[in-house]
């Protein structure tokens, strides 16, 4: 079982080195993680560390170019979600692996059509545990409702969900069991939640659809 933390932010975005993240996550029970940065070449960590390019606020016309460039140097490409039109653009762009920050998108930013596209192209939808921890009252309720909508769409279209801590500090890290506990506030199916912790491996090793010749 490959349980991965979907996204952590090492130094300089955060306060923690990649080696320390690897050690902490290993002791918490993860078997790998995705770091949103460049990792030093030829360095071995306690657990496998995949690197991701985290694209934020990239204009739609430049998305294809940026995603293509990232694939050459990083293992994965994460793109921050926006409104419905922008999200459809992300989901039809070659080389994108995961769409993030859906809880900050406008209402109906991720609709049935987006869910269908994500399922067809095996693009992951990243759900961060941080808003569930850091927000309170109405803001947290809104995030829970949004996550519930995404899980409902997942139940129907079966696109991959990626669970991540989005940690930028040592205190933001959560063990797999803690992440399951927190997401069980939103969705009760623990089997799906465990699958979501493993889904990044499937997304990274995805193959294109079978084409009839």
């Amino acid at each position, binding site marked *: 079982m490959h349980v991965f933390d979907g996204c952590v932010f*090492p*130094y*300089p975005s*955060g*306060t*923690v*080195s990649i*080696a*320390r993240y690897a*050690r*902490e996550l290993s*002791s*918490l029970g993860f078997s790998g993680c995705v770091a949103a940065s460049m990792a030093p070449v030829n360095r071995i960590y306690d657990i496998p560390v995949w690197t991701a390019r985290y694209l934020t606020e990239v204009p739609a016309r430049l998305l294809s170019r940026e995603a293509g460039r990232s694939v050459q140097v990083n293992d994965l490409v994460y793109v921050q979600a926006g409104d419905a039109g922008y999200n459809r653009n992300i989901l039809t762009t070659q080389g994108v692996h995961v769409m993030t920050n859906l809880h900050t998108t406008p209402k109906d930013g991720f609709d049935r059509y987006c869910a269908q596209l994500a399922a067809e192209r095996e693009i992951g939808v990243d759900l961060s545990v941080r808003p*569930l*921890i*850091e927000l*309170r*009252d109405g803001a*947290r309720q809104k995030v829970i409702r949004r996550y519930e909508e995404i899980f409902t769409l997942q139940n129907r279209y079966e696109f991959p969900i990626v669970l991540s801590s989005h940690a930028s*500090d*040592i*205190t*933001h*890290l*959560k*063990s797999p*069991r*803690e992440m399951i*506990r*927190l997401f*069980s*506030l939103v969705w009760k199916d623990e089997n799906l939640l465990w699958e979501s912790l493993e889904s990044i491996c499937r997304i990274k090793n995805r193959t294109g659809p079978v084409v009839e010749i």
Partner: protein
Amino acid sequence: MRENFRYVLVRITSDSVFESRDLYRSIAESVVSLYGDRITAQIWPSVMQVSGSYAIIRCRRGLEHDLETALCAISQIQGTPAAIHPLRTSGTIRTLKEKMPLCTEKRSAKAVISGVPCDVVVSMQGRIDLKEKGIYHEIPRYITEEDTEDLYYDE
């Protein structure tokens, strides 16, 4: 009638050491914020013991999963960034005390990171935390022995 309780062993990740009163306030705030007063009254959380970075929390039997969820949702204690990691659940305090790690020793040292010499605290498995303030934007604050250029312990 005698109540049945469950006890949860937790590890606190923070730079500071907290008293049981501070810990209780954070736990109570988190439980109330997540579940409201009615469920909080049912869970009946209570801090039994704090020992360094470990603590034992009590709750009513059958509601330990709800308590664990609320513990995971804590992001600060007394305004200091902190995390609480539930480790084990048991029906007796004695069992958890046996499982509580005895060796949590930390050593002061000096390290050179990216050419910057600074005071650090070294704990188990080569985990290094920087103590100095004001340099964190230049170098990472939480590192390992492999990230240092030079490391020597204080006498």
